[in-house]
């Protein structure tokens, strides 16, 4: 699995070079061998995965193709409800979340032929940017023992980076797709708010939750998004916006060409209090985009801290309402720092919550008008420092842990409030061998441009071809 992309494996299966059962067996063997250390999975069902693969193989023999993911092994964050499997959401309760139907994003991937390997580790209740989890074991950064995997979609990033699954679903309320993708050296896309249905995924904050793909390449994320995106009657906030052909937007075999694309490099906020290696890698990545023909210029980002605070007020308020029962009935089961974040939300008045929602609307109009008058995409760092040691996430007084969490998600959270598509792409390694990442942010529903810039960057560089030392 470590050598395949989703696109390549799907093509090989279609060409009869490898069967769905062989691909699934290979993934399961790899999980069996490596996941005791990596802790990417919360729930694995080898029998069910192989049964699905055999059914797909029988379909293949009679020429029946389910779709572009026929026989491709994937795994899903353990907040996606799938009937027959418990959904812990990273809590101590195995069946914390249930829904009437399967998670829409999962159901669409499965309908397109994907094999579900299992459900993936995550921060408790999707609250926490480091990916630590006292209940299910800390997901391990595959690049360096003892370092955080990033969160909250920690298992998704670890599984993909380590070749346990070719792609995964993550969710992102303040950076939870992009942060672990950045920390583990893979690609993660938080789509536009409403682009992918949230139905069947545990809510953390209705206004800021996004479901999105995680994979090793931008092209693979485009393949997954193509299947996941689109309106859903089960999610009133899903958008009726037309779903474009994302792969077609990436350009042909002639090579990456960004001529005419305007790239803005954030001149304020995003490079302040950022590790020097991170800042240097992102600026070098912007230089690569310029060499590919893009017009790169610095631009001023309006009110980033204000938008980040507004997003935080909304998230804290909504999450404490959603998880009030757990907080009231079984507070002792919640990790102290997670409990503290939920309790903080109880102290925000309805008046302040509503004002934050009203401010969000105004700030989004201003941001979109000002930034995208000057650029087609904005680029910035994702994580302010390479993945820190696990002790940074787990050792210290609760208020200090919460502060560290806030700092680590500082460069991603505002884009949840803004609802804009934001992509994390690997752009180098620190001197300690930990991945560094570039964030590419676009206009609402302009995933095609965001993916095109990310794909062009990957075609011109080889960071995404490096493998972590897990074998």
């Amino acid at each position, binding site marked *: 699995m470590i050598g395949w992309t989703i696109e390549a494996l799907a093509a090989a299966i279609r060409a009869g070079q490898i069967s769905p059962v062989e691909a699934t067996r290979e993934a399961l063997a790899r999980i069996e061998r490596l996941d005791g250390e990596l802790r990417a999975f919360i729930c694995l069902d080898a029998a069910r995965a192989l049964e699905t693969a055999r059914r797909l193989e029988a379909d293949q023999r009679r020429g029946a193709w389910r779709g572009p993911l026929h026989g491709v092994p994937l795994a899903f964050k353990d907040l996606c409800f799938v009937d027959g499997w418990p959904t812990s959401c990273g809590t101590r309760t195995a069946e914390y979340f249930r829904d009437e139907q399967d998670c829409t994003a999962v159901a669409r991937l499965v309908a397109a032929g994907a094999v579900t390997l299992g459900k993936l580790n995550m921060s408790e209740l999707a609250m926490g940017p480091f990916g630590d989890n006292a209940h299910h074991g800390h997901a391990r950064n595959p690049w360096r023992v003892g370092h955080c995997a990033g969160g909250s979609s920690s298992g998704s990033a670890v599984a993909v980076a380590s070749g346990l699954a070719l792609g995964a679903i993550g969710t992102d309320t303040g950076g939870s797709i992009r942060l672990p993708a950045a920390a583990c050296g893979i690609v993660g896309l938080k789509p*536009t*708010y*409403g682009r992918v249905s949230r139905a069947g995924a545990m809510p953390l904050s209705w*206004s800021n939750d996004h479901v999105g793909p995680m994979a090793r390449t931008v092209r693979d994320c485009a393949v997954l998004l193509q299947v996941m995106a*689109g*309106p*859903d009657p089960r999610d009133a*906030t899903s*958008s*009726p*916006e*037309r*779903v*474009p052909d994302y792969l077609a937007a990436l350009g042909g075999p002639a090579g990456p060409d960004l001529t005419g694309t305007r790239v803005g490099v954030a001149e304020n906020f995003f490079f302040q209090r950022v590790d020097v290696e991170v800042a240097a890698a992102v600026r070098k990545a912007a230089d690569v985009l310029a060499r590919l023909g893009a017009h790169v210029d610095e631009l001023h980002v309006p009110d980033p801290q*204000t938008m980040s*605070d*507004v997003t*935080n*007020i909304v998230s*804290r308020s909504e999450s404490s309402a959603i998880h009030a029962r757990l907080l009231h009935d079984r507070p002792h089961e919640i990790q102290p720092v997670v409990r*503290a974040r939920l*309790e*903080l939300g109880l*102290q*925000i008045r309805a008046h*302040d919550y*509503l*004002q*934050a*929602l*009203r*401010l*969000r*609307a*105004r700030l*989004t*109009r201003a941001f*979109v*008008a000002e930034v*995208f008058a000057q650029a087609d995409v904005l680029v910035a760092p994702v994580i302010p420092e390479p993945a820190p040691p696990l002790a940074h996430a787990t050792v210290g*007084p*609760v*208020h200090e842990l*919460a502060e560290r969490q806030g700092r680590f998600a500082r460069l991603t959270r505002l884009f949840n409030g803004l*609802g804009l598509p934001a992509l994390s792409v690997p752009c180098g390694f620190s001197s300690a061998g930990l991945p560094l990442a570039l964030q590419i942010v676009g*206009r*609402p*529903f*302009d995933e095609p*441009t965001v993916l095109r810039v990310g794909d062009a960057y990957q075609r011109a560089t080889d960071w995404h071809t490096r493998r972590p030392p897990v074998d």
Partner: protein
Amino acid sequence: MTNESRPQQAEVAALLGVIERMAADLALAEEPARFITALEMGRPLAASTAGDADR
């Protein structure tokens, strides 16, 4: 008051500072649903709304 609740109250106060600074200037017509309108108005010009045909 516990040792943990003191920094939490300070954090809440700091977080809500943005409301104190900015909410008074909001237009009466400003409402949360305008966020969705902002996304729809901000999309690329070529994009358009489609019905169920796409899904």
